[in-house]
């Protein structure tokens, strides 16, 4: 652990320094964030009764645990009106970072400060998969704290925005394709203004038409002075939508700045 610490701290200094901009109002401040989580690495047979029994006989308390240091000292400030794209190779800590900003993962060190409650839209498409699309709309709106009247008023625009095939709105969400589910989910979440919206590949499954509409919606959210974070492997989406890009590499910030510049460097480095 000590050796690992030294190695990491020397690299941590190499991350770009963050200087607060006093002229703008921050909405998310990530301060030296480290995320470590533990996973079992039971060699593929962790679940069987026999191995569990052997563990008890051998008096081992837990199966082999592995620590994953997914985010390593990340700092940045997001200001009101920012749309920040996060790029990086698989396993570079993008999704982990978003989860931490949403408050779903506790920091091992450092902190995340936000104004208001961030909402995370992930890849798993359904909110309540055994319920119909229209039920999901109503319940989603009510859960976000909208009144029954507001819910009724926004129902039609949500259906229109999600643009489902005719009839699907009355089917359970478990029957939806991943693209349809993601669209409906995004439409529900976008019905209310969010201070911070975190989108983790949720738009990836949409078609070109939906991408255009969701970009308009993200712009709208930015104008309402919230902030939007976007994780996507499709760099075009990020280039079109974001005003700033953070490049994560092995849990560290490699670059943070103008989309053109960062995406250019990223494309060059990954050889796309």
């Amino acid at each position: 652990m000590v050796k690992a610490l030294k190695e990491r701290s020397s690299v941590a200094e190499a991350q770009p320094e963050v200087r607060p901009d006093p002229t703008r109002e921050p909405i998310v401040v990530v301060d030296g964030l480290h995320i470590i989580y533990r996973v079992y690495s039971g060699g593929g047979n962790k679940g069987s009764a026999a191995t569990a029994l052997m563990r008890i006989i051998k008096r081992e308390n837990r199966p082999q645990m592995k620590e994953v240091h997914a985010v390593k000292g990340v700092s940045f400030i997001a200001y009101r009106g920012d749309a920040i794209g996060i790029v990086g190779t698989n396993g570079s800590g993008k999704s982990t970072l978003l989860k931490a900003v949403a408050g779903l993962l506790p920091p091992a060190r450092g902190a995340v400060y936000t104004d208001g409650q961030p909402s995370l839209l992930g890849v798993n498409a359904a909110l309540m998969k055994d319920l119909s699309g229209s039920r999901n709309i109503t319940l989603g709106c009510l859960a976000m704290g909208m009144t029954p009247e507001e819910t009724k008023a926004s129902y039609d625009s949500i259906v229109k925005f999600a643009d489902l095939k005719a009839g699907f709105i009355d089917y359970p969400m478990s029957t939806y394709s991943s693209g349809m589910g993601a669209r409906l989910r995004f439409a529900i979440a976008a019905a209310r203004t969010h201070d911070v919206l975190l989108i983790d590949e949720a738009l990836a499954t949409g078609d070109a038409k939906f991408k255009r509409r969701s970009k308009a919606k993200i712009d709208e959210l930015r104008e309402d002075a919230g902030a939007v974070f976007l994780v996507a492997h499709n760099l075009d989406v990020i280039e079109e939508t974001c005003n700033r890009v953070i490049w994560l590499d092995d849990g560290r910030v490699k670059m943070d700045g103008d989309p053109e510049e960062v995406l250019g460097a990223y494309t060059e480095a990954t050889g796309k």
Partner: protein
Amino acid sequence: MSHRERLTASEGEPVATINDPARWNGTGGASLAEFAAQHGLRQSAARPSLPAYVKALWQRRTFVWNLASAKTAATYSGSHLGQVWQVLTPLLNAGVYYLIFGLLLGQNKHITNYPAFLITGVFVFTFTQRSLSAGAKSIGNNLSLIRALHFPRATLPLAYVIMELQQLLISMAVLIVIVLLTGETPEISWLFIIPVLVLQLIFNIGISMMIARMGAFIRDIQQLLPFITRTWLYFSGVFFMIAERVDKISGHGHHWLGRIMEANPAAVYIELVRFALLDTYHKDAAQYHLNHGLLWLYALIWAVVAFVGGFWYFYRAEERYGRG
């Protein structure tokens, strides 16, 4: 979708802590924290204050009711008979228990109207039992909802108990019909069912919130729970008369066991409904000097203690549900 293993199960401590602040502050972390504080930013996903939480919860009352109704509809949507099962399930339950405990084992020596006695017990107990098992699943089954939207998580166990309440109301209608068929006559004392069930509802909300927090972090609870509720069922005087059994135990010198059986919340609510509904049961129990005031006191205390304790316990982990 499962919660990852946590180092500390009780409080929301980080999974690992690094005890060397100096070398980790390469970019001057303190100034960032100050900058955040200047603009009134708070730590992500902190727990709201209790008054704010209760207010948010009250604001979501339509959500709770709609979620309960939607879940009920979804439960039966796959079957041909649909929501007819809401009536059939309690009826079949009562039938099975009557077959075994009424006819096969012959428990009805001292109880005049054994079918009504038994079915009342089964229905009232089922309300508590199902609230408990639904509560244990309420967080784990809704992780994608929890992770996507922000709302007070207590609405989930609450909605599941409301769902069971809707089922109970149907069961009670069935029960009234059965009771009438077995020869009881409607009386003004039947109205006492309402305060009893209200107290039981409050009690159920409390315990299901408690089990919801436990079930969210320890998945094994769901495997264990059926055994706990079944043991509870056999102790709660669903099939036998508590007063008679306590009398017998006390004869053997085990007074404390008798006291515990009488104070058992499930037994208290069952007995109170029986006394309200069954005129014949009053006569059956007359010889055992039952203290009705004490029963009501138990019912009230259990409801208040379970509700306040369960709500507080659930609220204390509010920011950690869905993490992992």
